[in-house]
């Protein structure tokens, strides 16, 4: 019974892992056009809207560590801190959002994802020859593609995780921890 209480947490972790794997494969094929898709906001949506603060934070932190270990970022990482931050923002707004997803959730996803990608670009651009202007077109296309992926899959991914949580854990209840 004790273990069953953690099923939504496990669902979130496994779903994030699988989504990350799918993105890795997609990016492998997109590399022919030197494009790379990143959707950090998508990984915190379910944990922030449906899990308690601590569990959501744990999922965000572990997912961030997973992503940082696969990408050429500094030892301090980027997603290890970015995903918990996104989780905190979404968690604080969750009383005003639909937990099953909706237009408000999609809008929030778009905004936080865009900001995260812009921060990442700002962090990495100084090390690049020619600065931001040298690859602006490719960068805009890359960010637009990422936003498009979120727009298309955001609600579906959230719904999928909610359904899985209910399938494996019948007595699932919304964990409504107060926002700290």
């Amino acid at each position: 019974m004790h273990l069953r209480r953690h099923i939504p947490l496990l669902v979130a972790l496994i779903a994030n892992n699988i989504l990350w794997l799918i993105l890795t494969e997609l990016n492998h094929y997109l590399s022919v056009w030197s494009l790379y898709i990143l959707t950090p906001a998508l990984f915190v949506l379910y944990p922030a809207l449906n899990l308690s603060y601590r569990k959501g934070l744990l999922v965000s932190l572990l997912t961030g560590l997973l992503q940082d270990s696969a990408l050429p970022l500094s030892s301090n990482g980027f997603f290890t801190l970015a995903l918990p931050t996104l989780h905190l923002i979404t968690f604080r707004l969750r009383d005003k959002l639909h937990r099953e997803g909706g237009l408000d959730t999609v809008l929030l996803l778009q905004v936080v994802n865009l900001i995260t990608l812009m921060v990442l670009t700002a962090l990495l651009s100084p090390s690049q020859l020619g600065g931001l202007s040298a690859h602006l077109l490719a960068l805009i296309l890359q960010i637009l593609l990422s936003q498009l992926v979120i727009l298309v899959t955001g609600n579906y991914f959230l719904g999928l995780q909610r359904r899985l949580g209910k399938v494996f854990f019948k007595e699932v209840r919304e964990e409504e921890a107060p926002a700290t």
Partner: protein
Amino acid sequence: MLFLAWALLPIPLKKAVRNGFHEFQVPSWEALSWGRDLQNFWAGRANRHSELISQGRDLARLNGAFRLQVMENESLRQELQRMEALLDLPPRPRYRYEVARVTHRQIGTWWHEMVVRKGRDDGITEGNGVVYAGGVVGKVQKVYEGTSIVRLVTSPGFRMPATLHGQTQPLFIQGLQHGSIGKPTGRVRNVPISSNVTPENPGYLVSTSLGQVFPNGLHIGKVEHLEQSSNGLFREGTVQFPSELYNLNEVAILVPLPSTTKTALKRN
């Protein structure tokens, strides 16, 4: 609180966590890579027999030509060793080619790298050169137990010495992220003022053993236009790397061999 805790964590511990998470993901990446190979295998099986026979015939011809080249290379190598011994030159670096399949590529405006299915277990170390049939790919950036991360020659911040084909003056190449999609580009610097290239008569860049990472003469890319550098002493221009650089499925890692030149000659 979390930020503070993470910031205070010692770097070796952060690296250990990072390595752990990397190794955790490796089996899933390998599974995807094997899946892709299996897909290619079944696609190959669907080929008609007549197609396979004609491909086999073409390969047999190529094999014959390559065998002759190997024999020629061997005799040239021995000649070179004799000359080096006569002139008492330091031995040239020799390499073992470790062929590795690409697990996945990560190429975009933020980074240019690929993960390959060979690592520490196969004697690969950080900084080893990586090549393919068309020339230079990049260098090994990080080595794990069974995988390695290869930083591509197009990666921003990548630098390597090179020369123009037929010349000896060293220059250097830097990776460059260009605005155009899917076109691997770089920047060549320190080109002598006397060098002249045009789109009709481009300059071909080849590797040099100066950096002790690549052997001499491996193709890197071509440069069609050179302009005066800011200091006025050299020229510089944009390098166009082969487009298949972003579509590689197999590479070879150059693992340096301990020098055997002098000992072989002593035996002779």
